[in-house]
């Protein structure tokens, strides 16, 4: 049981990292959209 818990905890930790990376990418795309239009 406890092994399973660590497994899930490990998964959740990985998931938080994935989420953070994806969120940063999304924000980057947002900024790039405005920046590239401005440069036009």
């Amino acid at each position: 049981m406890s092994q399973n818990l660590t497994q899930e905890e490990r998964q959740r930790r990985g998931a938080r990292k994935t989420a953070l990376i994806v969120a940063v990418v999304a924000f980057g795309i947002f900024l790039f959209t405005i920046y590239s239009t401005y440069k036009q």
Partner: protein
Amino acid sequence: MATTTSDVQIDIDAHDAHHGPEKGLLRWVKTTNHKDIGTLYLWFAFTMLLIGGAMAMVIRAELFQPGLQLVEPQFFNQMTTLHGLIMVFGAIMPAFVGLANWQIPLMIGAPDMALPRMNNWSFWILPFAGVMLLSTLFMKGGGPAFGWTFYAPLSTTFAPESTDFFIFAIHMLGFSSIMGAINIIATVMNMRAPDMKLMDMPLFVWTWLITAFLLIAAMPVLAGAVTMMLTDRNFGTSFFDAAGGGDPVMFQHIFWFFGHPEVYIMILPAFGVISQIIPTFARKPLFGYSSMVYATASIALLSFVVWAHHMFLTGMPIAGQMYFMYATIMISVPTGVKVFNWVTTMWRGSLTFETPMLWAIAFVILFTIGGFSGLMLGIAPADIQYHDTYFVVAHFHYVLVTGALFSIIAAVYYWLPKWCGRMYNEKLARIHFWWAVISVNVLFFPQHFLGLAGMPRRIPDYATQFADFNMISSIGGFAFGSSFLLLTYIIVSCIRSGEPIEDERVWESAKGLEWTVATPAPYHTFNEPPQKDKILSESSHVGAH
């Protein structure tokens, strides 16, 4: 339910009820349970579907005959605009997110979504955004009346004051979508049962994973577009105003860079749903699983390089038109592969036609018709005659109503018995199916003729040679609209008093991990991840593993 599922470790048998949902209304406000949130999404989407549908009824009633009978042109434009926005952002997208919330953890053997609290937040933004969007109707000067594509400068310099509220609502809807997508990516990437490989995943999970990446890439672009609109309107910038050195066509490029992936965001999960349903009722593994995955991925990639086929008439250089024409018609190759795979899955199966299968078959046929008109629209020189006519209206309603919406209805009929442990009334469901599928064609098929005969879209009144087909279309519209009253009754009576089912499998030969948990699906599932042999034997796409 302020606890996360990891706190439930003492709950050895998740089928027991002593860690069930909180009582009362607050359960729904505070919930972090993927099934609760899925339910919330689905009811929200259904409510918005009815509101957006009511607006469609206003549109069809005004178009019943030439002349203005019911609403002024300005209000008519508000109806077309809000109908589009509400159906896209309020009905179709949240419905698919709701299905994802319910199904993805069940299908990959995960206890919940990866980020349950964010999941709660991404849902609860929606009702506020929806109310804000609708409230613009009651503001001075009326709501947004510039079409769901809100082209500048009609949406900037020439728009009513309420446009700023519209912008804020779009920001919130986009924020919600991005958070939902982050959650799905993190869940699928990190929370799968440890023994489930990516290529073991059911197709619905695959299509949603790819859709989530589309959302991450597309929604921030929309956010950028409305942000620039906001500063153009209020802070003296001129991104889209030619008088200040900007370019209104640039707005269209940005909008469609979001907008074209957006239409695939609304159809890829539908492909996933259909790929789950057809094998079940054909009693045969899905044909060409890996080609389905690759086709979905290539559609997604292509969707980012074809946006300007919405803009053939904006004065693009000829090289641009050629490139976008070739890239666009290329999309029909992977889309065709999917259709061929579905048909081949049915071929030499042992078919039965329960309601979900009826909807799935209707999807394949009618979506393909929408695909044909899409191919025609993709031919740049022919698009001169089709662009901004009812031909386009017919096209995108075939892919979005008989495509996306039909797949959602199919999914609800398919999975609802699992969710609530009760069977819907099969007889009524069949009546509903035939009622809807006939009326939707009476509604949209004549619109092809209207477009070819020269009727532009987004007009409240029209020349008399368009009268026949408009009247037919309106009659079909009222019939199709009323079919949703029957659907509401079928769903509510199924949940409240449908015949209880005990069978875990529900459908004779359904495969997938979701069919291995008890019926109705318990509040907590897969606290123990499923083992490898179970994952493989439940795989709906691999026959003799």
